[in-house]
């Protein structure tokens, strides 16, 4: 019952879920926007993927700033705020990248 000496720290689970959902929404929206910009700019091949990881790094900085750099009071580990949603966003990025590239450069 005592909070000291626990192996597992007690955290508010529903707040954690809400925070994780919030960063997922952020990363998805930023992947879509980055895809549209990459398509308009005319990136092809590896350059586009480098652009995507650049966008994700800037997004990580933005999310760190949103959490006021005290990650442990909003999440349970560092990897959540840095890695969560990056590979899911890659699919959205490629979709909107090809979509925008087709609209601007091919049709």
């Amino acid at each position, binding site marked *: *019952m*005592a*909070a000291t000496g626990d192996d597992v720290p*007690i*955290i*508010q689970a529903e*707040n*954690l879920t*809400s*925070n994780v*959902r*919030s*960063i997922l*929404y*952020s990363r998805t*929206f*930023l992947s879509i*926007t*980055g895809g*549209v*910009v990459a398509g*308009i*700019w*005319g990136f092809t091949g590896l350059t586009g993927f480098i652009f995507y990881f650049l*966008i994700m790094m*800037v*997004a990580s900085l*933005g*999310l760190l*700033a*949103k*959490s*006021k750099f005290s990650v442990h*009071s*909003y*999440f*349970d580990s560092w990897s959540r705020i840095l890695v969560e949603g990056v590979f899911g966003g890659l699919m959205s990025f490629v979709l909107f990248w090809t979509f*925008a590239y087709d*609209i*601007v*450069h091919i049709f």
Partner: protein
Amino acid sequence: MPLKRRKHRLPYPAPPVSSHRQPAQHSRTPRRIAQPDSGSGKQPHREGGRRSSSPRLASAMGIGYVLGAIGGALLVHAAYATIQYRAVLKITEEEFSHPPFDVIIQLLVGLALCMWAGVSVPAKFLSVLPHSEENRIVSLPANLDFMIFNHRGRALPSDADLKLKI
């Protein structure tokens, strides 16, 4: 003449009474009632994501949406400009390598606005620590008359700095 209160004898601290009428001649110092989640006033640039509890902006979350819409409009305009540029290139039969410089500026500004909107519009982060100010677990219900404290719970080791929330 205000009613005399019963003398408070129980071991927990007396709950602050919220039904006092203020006597006109006293100037009371404002009582510090703990507010949920407004302790840190240090958020100068994050109005976009807050719940609308602050009346400072007309709609506290609206600014994020407006910035996102402006960013999207800039991107659409940049796309249209690039399509026209490609049409010109097709006439002069040159290769397309990159959009013109001002279109690139437009793309970057639109991207920056959308990134700002994308980080600030989704829900604000809530604290996950159980002992933070917003997550007080102990709370007293509205009617104290039916609660008794003279039970076996007295024998348990108690957390001396449990905070009461009313």
